[in-house]
């Protein structure tokens, strides 16, 4: 990678504050804005923001592979969908439905198939990895779509939202606002964990795989094991996003396991800026906002993916680092 000292060009480092102080101040400001948002926004936009955060988590999980390990996954819909269906299963079979059990079940389901997918797909690189993950996600789609007795087939599963419970202390029904806060907490927590992972020695090895796989192997790192763990971690966070989406919308549908969801995830990453973690969240928000804008301006029927696809292609050609690409080095410091 070319060492462009972008952070030195920005006045950020010279203001007397340390890098981490600026980072945490920025983090707190953004969090404060997001916490207050549901009070200010009308209910539709509050829900919209919550969904953007969930899509952001999905995109961020995939960034661990695309941006940090250099593996483009076209199969994140499988992890997302399995998280969703795992949570749905737990919610439908426990009385009263328990939120934490749903999260656990969703994560377990996503982790199980992530292990399966990782074991096979990490044997391959680059394009082959992308195609394999895509085909794996289609396998799970076909299974979910045709196994009607368990998954509800085309209709999916419908359930009611569990209460937020902490045993003996709290048992509250989710409102739009508290649901938003809950999602925000999970997404922000995941961001901090993912950031820690990418800055850890483990994350450094992933980045070194991205930069030069052969050399990383020559140094003596078991590259495939690292890749398997990376895919599993990524699948786990994607599954978490699936659980949140299920709980937010009170259903699980096979459409979300379909490859379109994986494609959207990749688009979020490219638009927002790969390898930045926050970029993909921004990309998801930007994508959803444009989509909403187009359908408001030109009606529901308007094929918003045509202009979005054109924007996407243009960005790949002219702005491959994405919206937040300019801050990539600074954010990863």
């Amino acid at each position: 990678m070319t060492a462009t000292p972008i952070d030195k060009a920005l006045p950020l480092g010279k203001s007397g504050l340390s890098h981490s102080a600026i980072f945490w101040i920025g983090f707190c400001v953004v969090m404060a804005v997001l916490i207050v948002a549901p009070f200010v926004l009308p209910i539709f936009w509050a829900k919209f923001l919550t969904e953007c955060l969930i899509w952001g988590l999905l995109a961020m999980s995939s960034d661990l592979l695309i941006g940090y390990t250099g593996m483009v996954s076209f199969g994140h819909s499988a992890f997302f969908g399995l998280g969703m269906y795992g949570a749905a299963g737990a919610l439908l079979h426990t009385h009263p439905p328990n939120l934490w059990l749903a999260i656990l079940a969703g994560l377990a389901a996503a982790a199980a198939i992530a292990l399966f997918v990782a074991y096979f797909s990490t044997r391959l690189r680059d394009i082959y990895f992308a195609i394999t993950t895509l085909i794996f996600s289609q396998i799970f789609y076909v299974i979910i779509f045709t196994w009607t007795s368990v998954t509800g087939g085309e209709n999916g599963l419908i359930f009611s939202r569990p209460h937020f419970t902490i045993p003996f202390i709290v048992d509250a029904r989710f409102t739009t606002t508290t649901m938003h806060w809950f999602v925000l907490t999970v997404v922000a927590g995941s961001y901090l964990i993912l950031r820690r992972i990418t800055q850890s020695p483990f994350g450094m090895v992933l980045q070194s795989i991205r930069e030069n796989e052969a050399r990383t192997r020559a140094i003596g790192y078991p590259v495939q094991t690292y890749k398997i763990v990376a895919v599993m971690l990524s699948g786990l966070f994607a599954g978490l996003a699936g659980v949140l989406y299920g709980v937010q919308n009170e259903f699980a549908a096979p459409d979300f396991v379909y490859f379109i969801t994986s494609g959207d995830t990749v688009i979020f990453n490219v638009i927002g800026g790969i390898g930045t973690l926050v970029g993909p969240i921004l990309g998801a928000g930007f994508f959803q906002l444009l989509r909403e804008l187009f359908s408001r301006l030109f009606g529901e029927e308007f094929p918003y993916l045509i202009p979005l696809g054109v924007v996407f292609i243009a960005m790949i050609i002219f702005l491959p680092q994405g919206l937040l690409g300019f801050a990539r080095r600074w954010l990863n410091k």
Partner: protein
Amino acid sequence: MHTLAAVFQDIPVDLILIQTVNGIVAGMILALVASGLTLIFGIMDVVNFAHGELFMLGAYIGVVVIAATGSFWLAFVVSSLTVAILGAALQIITLRPLIGRDPLTTILATFGLSLVLQNFALWEFGPTARKVGEPINASFQLFYLTYPWYRVVIAGLSAVIIGGFWLFLKYSKYGVWIRATTQDRVMAQAMGIPVPWVYTGVFAIGAGMAAASGMLFSPLVGVNHTMGLDWVLKAFIVVVIGGMGNLGGSIVAAIFISLLESYASIWVSPSQAVIVSFVVLILTLLFRPTGLFATPK
């Protein structure tokens, strides 16, 4: 008690034979789709995600031309040529600026193209499937089925197109250019071969082949904006099993996969029969990650 032998005795021989014919017909169309895909990959290192959409557009342009003129074969020629030209234009606009960049960016760009084309088709033609009449109505008796000759013609025509293309690669001047570029693009450039235009030409040929197969296939199932996705997935499987960039390998793999799927659909529904090819893919990746028919480099 059902022993394994009894299970095999229950299989009706005539059904097996009918499914064999069906499998070969589907396999030849798939081979036509996959050979375009593998050609584009082998020469340009581009995984063309939009290949299924070119297939679909070919079928739609056919629908339009048939509505205007009533001739299936005219539509076949017009749609192949139109999509080939469109392919060339798309290659120049979206892929040419990416030459020399990470091959993964080309996946993303063609994925964007597929989104645009698919949604354009949905917008322009609506979500309902269009019917295309078979140009040949004659049929023959295959056991208890009256089997349409058209299906046999499709298989034959696909074989002729692939064969013609192979001859083109082998003997014509431009075929030599293409093969030279595959072997060593820098050296080919040094020898005066206009490599960027070879890329464009190859993409156009691949697009035209996809459109031709879409057009040939359209009377069997009807034309719909999502029809490309199933095919591109199958073609990906075929191309990986056959060895990326290996033309002969992908033709064999296409027929192999289609036969397996049509045998499997004797017992399970066609949508579940797809899983069989997924399993073959996984086994291939496990034991021969470079493809079953890959030539060692």
